[in-house]
């Protein structure tokens, strides 16, 4: 019998983590053709890896970041006090155990954290693309990830995992490259945005574009549209929380009295949102925000029978679909639909709704519950792929075959 109440590892960033890590850069060997037909002459991908690739190359896990994430998923960059965005989940003994798995994390195409995006110089002019950067899709992001993964020597991933927009990439892997991945772990995500979800993104985009400093996207070398981007981030942050988590965190707590007009930061929640907004603009490019939210809104692998058809190549693949009870931005019903479509395609599906007050942010915060399901799910996946690969159940696997 397995003991359930083991020590609570991985629930916080701290000792036992990955320590110092670094972001690396991969330049695609040639031009990259987008799904729209447009070709990018030069694409650079920022990425990090944690753990060691096994000799059989059967232990690689790709983690995909959400809207505001980047390649720095875990560990610390030198001199920084905050770890990567999924540090609670990635490291020795954590959900994605770096003692067992080779974890790959990359900044998406269209991003602004080292991968090619609208802030990158256009090789044709030498100046930043701005809005002349072509529209990209979740599929384009995944295509680039595929090239990175192959460059790292991995033919078949053990799993692709990610929350929110990261979950959309996971699903796209299942649609576009089902033979290159043994298991999918979509978390707190959707097969396509509803009108409500698009609406929140549109408010964010309008906030950016209505900032006079935005200048039609041509603001590089000048003042960035920080007000607009901060406002977009504030709206976003509201949708990442839940009524209960906000009530618990802030309630009606007031800020110390100011001598302002009555419209200064009166409540704690206002201070929190402003802080989050201001912090965000220091590390994020406003045009990237537009491109990535547009990619999210355009993502649509179908609903109902169309979704079942979209996932038709997943039979016998393993899926672990995770949702959170208080997530109203990506409510569990959307994850249930994904799980259902996969089951109707005879995939091997586990669907887990985790009880949490943390809203959409739960996928970043609820590390212990996720570890309990993800770690075992990955172990079983690895055992099964080893068996399917014809080896005698040892460490060798089909991933190593060419």
């Amino acid at each position, binding site marked *: 019998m*397995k003991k*359930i109440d083991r020590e609570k590892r991985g629930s916080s960033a701290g000792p036992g983590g990955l320590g110092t890590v670094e972001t690396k850069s991969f330049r695609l060997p040639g031009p990259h053709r987008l799904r729209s037909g447009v070709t990018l002459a030069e694409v650079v991908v920022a990425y990090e890896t944690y753990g060691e690739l096994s000799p059989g190359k059967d232990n690689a896990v790709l983690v995909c970041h959400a809207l505001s994430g980047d390649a720095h998923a875990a560990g610390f960059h030198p001199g920084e006090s905050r770890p990567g965005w999924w540090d609670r989940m990635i490291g020795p003994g954590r959900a994605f155990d770096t003692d067992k798995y080779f974890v790959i994390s990359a900044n998406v195409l269209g991003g602004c954290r080292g991968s090619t995006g609208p802030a990158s110089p256009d090789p044709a002019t030498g100046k930043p693309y701005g809005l002349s950067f072509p529209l990209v899709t979740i599929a384009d992001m995944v295509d680039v990830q595929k090239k990175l993964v192959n460059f790292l020597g991995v033919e078949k991933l053990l799993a692709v995992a990610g929350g929110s927009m990261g979950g959309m990439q996971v699903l796209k892997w299942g649609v576009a490259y089902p033979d290159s991945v043994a298991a999918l772990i979509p978390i707190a995500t959707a097969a396509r945005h509803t009108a409500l979800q698009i609406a929140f993104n549109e408010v964010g985009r309008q906030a950016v574009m209505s900032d006079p400093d935005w200048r039609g996207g041509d603001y590089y070398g000048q003042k960035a549209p920080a007000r607009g981007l901060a406002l977009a981030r504030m709206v976003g942050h509201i949708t990442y929380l839940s009524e209960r988590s906000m009530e618990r965190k802030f309630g009606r707590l007031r800020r110390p009295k100011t001598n302002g007009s009555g419209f200064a930061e009166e409540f704690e929640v206002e201070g929190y949102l402003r802080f989050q907004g201001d912090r965000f603009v220091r590390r994020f490019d406003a045009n990237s925000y537009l491109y990535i939210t547009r990619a999210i809104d355009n993502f649509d692998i179908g609903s109902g029978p169309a979704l079942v058809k979209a996932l038709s190549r997943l039979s016998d693949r*393993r899926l672990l679909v995770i949702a959170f009870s208080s997530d109203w931005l990506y409510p569990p019903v959307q994850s*249930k639909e994904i*799980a*259902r479509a996969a*089951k*109707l*395609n*005879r995939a*091997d*599906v*586990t*669907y*887990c*709704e*985790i*009880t949490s007050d943390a809203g959409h942010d739960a996928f970043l915060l609820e590390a212990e*519950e996720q570890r*309990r*399901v993800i770690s*075992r*799910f990955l*172990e*079983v996946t690895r055992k099964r792929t080893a068996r399917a690969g014809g080896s005698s159940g040892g460490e060798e696997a089909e991933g190593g075959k060419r």
Partner: protein
Amino acid sequence: MNPEKRQAAARLDNRIIASLIPPGSRVLDLGCGEGDLLDLLVREKGVIASGVEIDEEAIYRCVEKGLSVSRLDIDSGLDDYPDGFFDYVIFNQVLEQVIHPRQALLQGFRVGRRVIVGFPNFCHWPLRFRILFRGRVPVGPALPYEWYDSPNLHFLSVKDFLDFCGREGLTVESRFFLAGVRRVRFLPNLRARKAILGLSRS
């Protein structure tokens, strides 16, 4: 019934159900709890197992056993599977708890070729005795709940269920009647605490 006896009875249930399932079958256990039955079936029969369970902690335990499970209620969980996907669909001690048992059973036959049902017999003699002589709604080993905290929505006897099978064109292929860990062969509607039936549909 003390916890030890209840566990022994649950283990016997699982043994009986396992005896009805050929190796390598594809099996769905509805209300699979912590996955003990599915785990047994995987280890001893090499079945391909799926479970549906609503309790969160039980889901974690199932995953830790390496099982594929969905945190759904049974009424909606059955919709998720394609026609004829399973060789066996198991409703052990859950039919009395779903909202629409008939619909759930018919759905069971949609997704599976055979269905195994286990339920407490509401006409077990001590329960009859309790109603008749004490004027109290029965609480007993197979029905251990007071009226105010019972998960059971439906109460049925062995005869009720056999009548139902007749009406719905279901064939009872195998039948086990139990009182605790003892098998009952004679007058089951009076003497059995629990029934486990293997069903097929012609």
